[in-house]
């Protein structure tokens, strides 16, 4: 038997498709059977169809600092990642739990008693020195306490197959548009694979988000609140997604210059004059949101926006100041926050993290710098990340002095041997590392869209999956409860 999977190197890491010994995991049997029937030419043909679909629809993202071709198409791997119902159940419970606790923490911090800080669950100085902490957000109300209305919780799977939280994205997590577009493309490219399985749909994300946005409208807004998506503009890396979301929800996509604040009321300029706005799903960073309060040179924002929010005339989503909770040093305290606010044990464990201001932990980390991953606490998108085992000596030496100069500015983590997934690379199927970003929406309650964005590091051995760093993606299929065939009936 010779097919695309012959000679696939299962490696010694956790493989999503093959159990140790090369046995196909039950929830992948259907797909693997199908792949075995395909030739390399079949797959290439389907890749061409996929590329044509994406290019024509302009599904692209922008890479900063890249001169040739401002836009790239997002690279979707044709082999989907499949998550069985019982695994998804754990992920879903874990993400809901985590987002619920983080929302409680942020609401407590900005409009509450700051109980967690007073009781020392998180050190006060740590909160106050977080780059994402915003004094300006004190007293800005958020209905239902849904300060992280949209969050993306990055999960990885370690060598034992345990899902762990790698980081929380609580400011402006992006990627949901790719989840929806990947699914739409896959149903066109590999329709028969879907027909055979019970894959849970994802296309209700738009209505779900709109419902949540309306749920957090200020009480004065009445029963038909006006929500808008606020984008920095067409040159932003995630502009495609901003436009996509506005279209999915059927609401206006506005830029800062479309909005005007008068008497603490926000309106948008329309062809028929000014129209009041109640909820702003902003995809602009805190720093650029309101030049009166934050960076005065920002042309992207709206002067007076924060005062309108504080007056309770408009709700800004996600809330201002969320960055304090996805600071990578505060991340280390999230399990404690879950215990403190919810009285529960965390469903999804963190990755072992070292805090470098602690002299003992720092000393140990500096000893083992070549074995660990070091991350700047406030960056996202994989920028500034150093992977010890892959780094040059000079790089490590420079890192060492940066850590010593600013120990609060970095955390170190054990290298997680990210699970691998068979991936189409240059006409062959090889194992590549993957992660998973499920998206949660908090309105009146927290919900998770089944699946999420599976990102794949396309370079062999690379652990960095961010699209800005040359990563691709996979459609992520969460199976319905009854979809996994009974192994006995299947004949093994």
């Amino acid at each position, binding site marked *: 038997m010779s097919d695309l999977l012959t000679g696939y190197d299962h490696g010694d890491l956790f493989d999503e498709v093959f159990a140790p010994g090369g046995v196909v995991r039950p929830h992948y049997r259907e797909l693997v059977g199908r792949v075995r029937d395909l030739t390399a030419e079949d797959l290439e043909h389907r890749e061409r169809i996929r590329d044509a679909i994406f290019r024509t*629809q302009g599904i692209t993202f922008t890479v900063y600092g890249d001169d040739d071709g401002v836009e790239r198409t997002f690279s979707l791997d044709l082999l989907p990642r499949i998550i069985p119902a019982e695994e998804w159940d754990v992920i879903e419970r874990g993400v809901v739990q985590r987002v619920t606790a983080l929302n409680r923490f942020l609401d407590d911090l900005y409009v509450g008693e700051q109980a967690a800080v007073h009781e020392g669950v998180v050190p006060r100085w740590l909160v106050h020195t977080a780059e994402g902490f915003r004094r300006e957000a004190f007293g800005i109300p958020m209905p239902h306490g849904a300060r992280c209305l949209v969050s993306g919780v990055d999960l990885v799977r370690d060598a034992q197959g345990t899902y762990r939280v790698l980081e929380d994205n609580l400011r402006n997590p992006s990627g949901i548009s790719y989840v929806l577009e990947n699914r739409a493309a896959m149903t066109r490219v590999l329709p028969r694979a879907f027909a055979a399985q019970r894959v849970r749909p994802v296309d209700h994300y738009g209505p779900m988000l709109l419902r949540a946005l309306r749920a957090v409208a200020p009480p004065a807004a009445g029963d038909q609140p006006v929500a808008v998506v606020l984008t920095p503009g067409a040159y932003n890396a995630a502009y495609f997604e901003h436009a996509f979301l506005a279209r999915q929800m059927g609401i206006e996509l*506005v830029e800062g210059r479309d909005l005007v604040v008068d008497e603490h009321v926000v*309106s948008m300029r329309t*062809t028929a004059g000014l129209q009041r706005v109640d909820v702003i799903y902003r995809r602009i960073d805190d720093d650029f949101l309101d030049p009166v309060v934050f960076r005065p040179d920002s042309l992207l924002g709206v002067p007076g926006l924060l005062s309108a929010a504080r007056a309770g005339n408009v709700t800004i989503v996600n809330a201002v100041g969320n960055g304090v909770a996805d600071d990578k040093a505060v991340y280390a305290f999230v399990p404690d926050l879950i215990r403190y606010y919810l009285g529960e044990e965390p469903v999804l464990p963190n990755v072992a993290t070292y805090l470098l201001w602690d002299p003992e932990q720092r000393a140990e980390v500096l000893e083992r710098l070549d074995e660990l991953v070091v991350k700047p606490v406030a960056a996202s998108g994989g920028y500034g990340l150093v992977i010890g085992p892959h780094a040059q000596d000079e790089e490590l030496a420079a890192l060492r002095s940066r850590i010593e100069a600013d120990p609060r500015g970095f955390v170190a983590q054990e290298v997680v041997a990210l699970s691998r997934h068979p991936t189409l690379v240059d006409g062959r199927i090889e194992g590549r590392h993957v992660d998973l970003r499920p998206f949660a929406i908090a309105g009146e309650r927290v919900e998770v869209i089944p699946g999420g964005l599976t990102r794949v590091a396309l370079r062999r051995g690379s652990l960095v999956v961010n699209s800005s760093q040359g990563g691709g993606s996979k459609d992520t299929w969460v199976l319905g409860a009854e979809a996994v065939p009974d192994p006995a009936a299947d004949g093994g």
Partner: protein
Amino acid sequence: MLARLAENLFTAGRDIERAEATARMVDITYHSLLESPSGERGDAWEQLHEVLGTVAEPDDDALARLVLDRGEPRSVLASVTRAREHVRSVRELVSTELWEVINDLHLTLATTGLARQVDEQPYHLLAGVRRACLTIYGVASDTMPRDEAWRFLALGRLLERAAMTCRLVQVHHQRLEQLSGPSRRLGLGGDPAGLEPGPGDFHQWVTVLKSAAALEAYRRRYRASMDPADVVEFLLLEPDLPRSVAFCLTGARLQLEALAAGRRSRAVREVGRASASLTYRDVSELFAMGLAPFLLDIQARMQRVDAAIAGEFFRHHPSGALHAIASP
């Protein structure tokens, strides 16, 4: 609808129309020159530059400049690029099909190595551009509800087209006057039909009609005669010709009336006046008052329409006290 997006759609309508018209006129000029004495070469390109409002430069390759030059803001490529950016900014307001056609057109024009292909054989590309632009309107017309988005897109297109036809007639009319002297001025003596156009003129007017994509329609209406008065009447006053100025301004008036939705509207008044100055006019009157001043007058009216549209739909300010102090 957001004022900025309305303006983007309006501008996109203009740019798509301009790309289509430019591709068509470049194609016609290029091919008409293949059968002309070489002395007319520079002349014809210069005339086209005048119609398009571009400036000819010495030793200029007009073809390259008007089609694929990114640095020329009125080239086909620049117009399509702008239109795509604008449509991209309103993707949530237009149909996906519309976006796909315009994105495809942009991808085609951005292909590398196209310049050589155009230099050797421009027809294929130019015809492709025209077909794509017509497809864009076909798709828009078949997939978009007749809402504000549609109306602003259509409005931009109609006003651009009216302006282009005006300039086309104006430039060729001027050229004929220069060539033939005042004695052959159109309509002299109030008897335009009595003029016997020379063979050179015949060629000119055929080019004008072709440039307005109206030659076939003209022949069906007027048969073989190529009377300058008929051509002018057809291109300016004909109520049923899609590229006549009267047709475009009537269309623009209907769009603006729908957009104003019963409000008192300066834009509607301005476009109504401009439109009426054609609708209730006889061609002999145009010649009696002089075609050149008439064309200047109608263009000035159209500029007032543009200004009224911008003021009424695209620029709003809060009436609050602080803002009132800030803006005079």
